[in-house]
């Protein structure tokens, strides 16, 4: 079973679109690694541009956000931009269909939590580390703040999506099966 988790970056906004995750001008890049420095380059949080050089961004291995994450353009580059930054889990209240599918198609995780759970996660103090237990369909958020206890969350993963993660993505799954 694959291990997913690490330091979390919380993006407190709904409807973050794929143009914000990776702007169209980078769609002419012919390698995924070329996307690495441009992740979330056009993101506005609370009306302000987002600081890409924040160490929290550099260290993040998990991203947590609110509703309708990854809406807009179908560009899988948005998923790759996370992947090449070693972010292999995105947690959200909900995803746009194509983005969610692209995540599982690449064999990485798009986890949906309820609105209450997302609130609970965002209300935690301190910097968070999130460990995902795929088999148990749960995740634990651990804060570095001494007056914050660990919080556990459960999620549901569709069996097909689970098998895509296990197969390492849709291409290997489909190539073996169809």
């Amino acid at each position, binding site marked *: 079973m694959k291990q997913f988790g690490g330091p979390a970056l919380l993006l407190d906004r709904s*409807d973050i679109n794929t143009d914000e995750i990776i702007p169209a001008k980078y769609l002419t890049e012919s390698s995924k690694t070329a996307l690495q420095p441009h992740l979330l380059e056009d993101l506005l949080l609370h009306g302000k541009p987002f600081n890409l050089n924040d160490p929290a961004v550099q260290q993040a291995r998990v991203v947590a956000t609110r509703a309708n994450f990854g809406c807009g353009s179908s560009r*899988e580059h948005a998923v790759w931009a996370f992947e090449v930054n070693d972010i292999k889990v995105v947690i959200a209240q909900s995803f*746009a269909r194509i983005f969610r*599918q692209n995540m599982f*198609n690449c064999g990485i995780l798009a986890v949906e939590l309820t609105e209450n759970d997302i609130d609970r996660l965002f209300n935690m103090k301190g910097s968070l580390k999130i460990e995902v237990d795929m088999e148990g369909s749960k995740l634990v958020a651990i804060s570095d703040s001494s007056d914050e206890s660990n919080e556990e969350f459960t999620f549901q993963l569709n069996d*097909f999506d689970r098998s895509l993660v296990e197969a390492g993505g849709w*291409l290997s799954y489909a190539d073996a099966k169809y």
Partner: protein
Amino acid sequence: MGKTIAQKIFDAHLRDTPTPDNMVLDIDVVMCHEITTPIAIMDLVEKDMDRVFDPTRIKAVIDHVTPAKDSKTAAQGKIMRDWAKRHGIIDFFDVGANGVCHALFPEKGFIRPGYTAIMGDSHTCTHGAFGAFAAGVGTTDLEVGILKGVCSFRSPDSMRINISGEFAKGVTAKDVILKIIKELTVNGATDKVIEFSGPVVEQMTMAARMTLCNMAVEAGATSGICAPDRVTAEYLWPYIQKDYTSIDEATADFSKWHSDDDAEYVSVIEMDVSELVPQSSFEYKPDQVKDISELAGSPIDQVYIGSCTNGRIEDLRDAAAILKGRKLATGVRGIVTPATPLIYSQALEEGIIKIFMDAGFCVLNPTCGACLGMSSGVLAEGEVCASTTNRNFNGRMGKGGMVHLMSPFSAAAAAVSGVISDPRDYLN
């Protein structure tokens, strides 16, 4: 229990059901453009899987940045060109023959009622206007489509929007869909198919139905869909006349792709367009929509008329009705791109290109151009564009730029006044 159009299409294409919620469908048409396909091609080559499931069912075009603007876009075009050649993909449209994918492929008759279609492009939902299930996908889905001719979807729950009433002057399908997205919000239709129905849709041209379906994804929908009828049959007639003895016969046959009366919908929304007035988006989400009169007077720097939403001949005629005999307001840049070469020639023949040029517009070749902020009219920081396109995300047409989505009538009214304006004041 009856079935919706989408369910009927799913049933007819079902290859596998890996879990009860996931369906792997056979895909009739895999469409490709030069932004999302080259990376799929290179990945397939690298994995020693450089094959195509059926070259006649793959349609390819260079449309987003064309002719190439720099070395990188030239390389993307070349990868497509070489790939099409090596696999014998005959329906490949390059410079001179190319146009915006979702306008060009329907015009070539590639999409038929009951078809399944995918493309590495979110606005693939446009093709649902023909009674097809058409969905945008990412690169991996595209690779599997190219290689195996299949794609996986969750079950196609449909919502139905019944549109009735009479359009007031200056109100178009674009205003209807903007209003619908405002009501549904940007994720109101996520994982669902939006079926557009009712007397207004039945009377719509294919161009107007494509405008409706085009923006279904802006409410999160997987596909838009309209029941195929006589209008569909007439549009497709040059391509289907060998299959049917008459348009009547084709129309009758298409009715097998109509939803049953007792089909189940997750929701049914009634919409009367009689009171609808011209709409425009504001700020950075396509569900941020107001009556255009509420935004009237806000200044613009550029007008952009084109795209897969509103770059068809009907749209250019609408804009020309306002531009005729008028000039761009001082300081406003006007850009028009007819969506395909055929539309361009029609516009030339009808004198529409001259109207645009006399008004002071720059007439581009068919291309996506500034719609996605990659070429041909990118905005500078702080600039504002009145645009007939479909997306107003922050940075969409250029970093720091703002896009107001509106109909061709409204964009033309903005062009001649220099500020967002109610187009009805310019129509007699």
